[in-house]
């Protein structure tokens, strides 16, 4: 897509610090990193989100994440990392080209989990039924 910043990076029209590339996937440094080495992994084909990505591209994308996670772990000697996808604008997705964040972590870097709550009586089974009914 011509006005997509990630498509421009894939085409080399915008420079990036590349970490990994194959026929389907490109990975490069996020220039506004949460932590040093914060990497974005994108499918080369322009798709906005999970809803649009096809099976084969999804498979290639996450197997690349696995490979890059391993490389970051060994290469940076980090004790762990997070991977995350913010799917759609309501979830904080800013660039409408699907991407997986890999964020290297250090002990005590202060990055906390989101706060957790609990279900009231019957609420979990009701929510479960709504989701199960829509599994295809």
């Amino acid at each position, binding site marked *: 897509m011509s006005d997509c910043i990630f498509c421009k990076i894939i085409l080399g029209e915008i420079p990036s*610090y590349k*970490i990994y590339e194959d026929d389907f996937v490109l990975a490069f*440094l996020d*220039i*506004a*990193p*949460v932590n040093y*080495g914060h990497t974005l992994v994108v499918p080369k084909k322009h798709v906005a*989100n*999970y*809803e649009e990505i096809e*099976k084969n591209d*999804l*498979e290639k994308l*996450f*197997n690349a994440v*696995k490979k890059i*996670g391993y*490389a*970051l*772990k*060994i*290469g*940076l*000697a*980090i*004790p*762990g*990392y*997070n*991977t*995350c*996808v*913010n*799917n*759609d*604008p*309501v*979830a*904080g*997705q800013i660039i409408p080209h699907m991407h997986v964040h890999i*964020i290297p*972590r250090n002990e005590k870097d202060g990055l*906390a989990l*989101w706060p*957790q*709550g*609990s*279900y009231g009586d019957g*609420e*979990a089974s009701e*929510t*479960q039924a*709504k*989701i*199960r*009914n*829509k*599994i*295809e």
Partner: protein
Amino acid sequence: MDCIFCKIVAGDIPSYQVYEDDQVMAFFDILPISPGHTIIVPKKHVADLEDLSDAEMTALALAVKKIGKAVMDGLGVKGYSVFLDNKSAANQHVPHAHFHLVPRAEGDGLERWPQSGYSEGEAEEFLKNLKKAL
């Protein structure tokens, strides 16, 4: 194996299950970040993302997509966050690889982590070190 997720997969501990196939099971996190917060696990005990076979990784990724669609359709949400915390330094509490799928809503107050930038030459240095180490 003294693993809580293995016990859930085996049915020894009850769960609110939302999906199951040959390789994957998905059930509710009982301490949800938002209603419908789902945990997606490989049935086989694997601690780390890197230890998953390509076939297991693929099965998980496809299950996440399927469940995400059902969450959007069933709960009427307009998006969701998917994350996997790898190792305790990254807040992984149960050492059995798992994806979280968290339904999202406008104004839910869940913020992205703060971002910074690289100083001049720092990113180049990083890449050099990474390549050297590999």
